[in-house]
Each structure stands twice: as C-alpha cells, then as structure tokens.
C-alpha cells in the first residue's frame, strides 16, 4: 500500500460519491456543485498521472468556465422544480438493469484483459510539459486544431442565434 495507492483510493471514493450525489440530488444547483467536486477529484488524479497542464486546464475550463455557464443557466431559469413524476414506470428499473449489465461487461473485460501487474509509470516532467504538448498540437495535429477553432466559432454563432428573440418580439 503505497502513498500513490492511498491517494488514488481517496480520490476514487470522492469522485464516485460526487457522481452519486449528482444523480440523486433533487436540486440542480446541488447537482452542479457535486459535478464540480467530481471534476476537481479527477483533476488531482491527472496530476498524479503526470499530466499537470491537463489537470489545470480541467480545473479552469471544466470546473471554472463550463460549470459557471451551467450555474448561470440554472439561476436564469429558476432552480428547483421537483417535478420528477414518472411517466414511464418501467423506464427507471430498466435503465438501472441495463447500465449494471454494461458495468459488469466493462469490468469483466478489464479483469480478463489487463493484468494487475501492469502499473502506471512514474510521471516524467519533460514528457508532458506545455512545450512538448504545444509542439505536438501545432505540428502533428494542426489540422484538427484548426477544425476545433471552426467548431468553437460555429458554437458561438449558434448560441447567439438560438437565444436571439424573434424579430416580432424585439419590435414590441
């Protein structure tokens, strides 16, 4: 039982508990806060796995920007409408049974294919520093990088167009 093992077990428990809280809490604001806890736990785990840049990007982009957007929309629409009346009675049990099947299948594949003796490597500081990452991003993956810029542009325009009020309403 090394220190890395203890860190991993602690983070895993935090991440899974936060995910359970996300699914079970009735108030969407609490769901958002649980999701932030989950992102932070996974972000620290990226640090353990030797990805410091991605860990910080996770915290700033996910736990920061995206979750603020979520909370902003929850506040805008008025939080907490606990109207969780079941319209399809069989849907919830069926969902849980099918997901349990996927879970067991995944864990079975994991146990039979990946030996427990294969361990993660010691993080190499030079391997994942921003310079190496940038070289890879701008040389080898320059075309996908350009495409993501297009995706972001289209998403920004789409969001503006979608939330724009129809011309008739604006005239009033």
């Amino acid at each position, binding site marked *: 039982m*090394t220190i890395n093992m203890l860190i991993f077990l602690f983070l*895993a428990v935090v991440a899974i508990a936060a995910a359970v809280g*996300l699914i079970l809490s009735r108030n969407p604001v609490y769901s958002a806060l649980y999701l932030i806890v*989950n992102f932070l736990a*996974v972000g620290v*785990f990226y640090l353990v796995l030797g990805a410091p840049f991605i860990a910080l990007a996770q915290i700033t982009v996910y736990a920061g920007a995206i979750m603020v957007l979520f909370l902003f929309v*929850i506040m805008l629409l008025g939080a907490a409408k606990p109207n969780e009346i079941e319209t399809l009675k069989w*849907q919830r049990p069926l969902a849980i049974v099918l997901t349990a099947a996927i879970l067991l299948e995944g864990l079975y594949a994991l146990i039979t294919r990946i030996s427990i003796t294969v361990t993660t490597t010691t993080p190499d500081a030079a391997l994942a520093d921003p310079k190496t990452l940038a070289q890879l991003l701008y040389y080898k993956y320059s075309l996908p990088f350009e495409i993501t810029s297009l995706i972001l542009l289209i*998403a920004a325009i789409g969001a503006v167009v979608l939330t724009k009020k129809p011309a008739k309403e604006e005239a009033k």
Partner: protein
Amino acid sequence: MIPVAFPIGLAIILFCMGIVGFIVRKNAIVIFMSLELMFNAANLLFITFANQFQQVDGHVFVIFVMVTAAAEVAVGLAMIVTIFRGKHSVDIDQLTNLKG
C-alpha cells in the same frame, strides 16, 4: 505506482453513472451534466493510457475533447433556454410537440 486497471475501472464506473443519470433524470440541465460526467470518464482513460504508453498524444486528444464539450455545452444550454421560453419548463417529459 498503482495498477493501470484501477483508473480504468474508475473510468468505467464514472461512465456508467453518467449513463444512469442521463436516462433516469428528467431535468434537461442535469442530463447535460451527466453528459459531462461521461466526457470526463473518457478523458480519464486518455490520460491513463498516455501515462502507460509514455505518449503525449493522449493529452492532445483530451484538449480536443474539452473544446468539443465546451462548444456542446454552449449550444445545448442555448437550446434549453430557448425551449424554456416557449414551455416554461426544462422537464423533458413536457417536450411532446413531435408526438403524433
């Protein structure tokens, strides 16, 4: 150092919880959050294998996934706001306009 199987198992569990949340919840915003949970599990796998095989390519793909998730959230939340304007509800059971 920990066995590689552990982070992969964690990713599988988180992904399945994302699926459960996606199917079970009725609030459209919480459904989007479950989607983020699934993105996160996929990212965890990328980072784990990047560590195991000593390749930085996985990190680059995580950046792409993050960008796509950000774009998806921006458009999705805009759609939720638009739907809320017409229906005054984010309950997906209310969206029955296409029902024949």
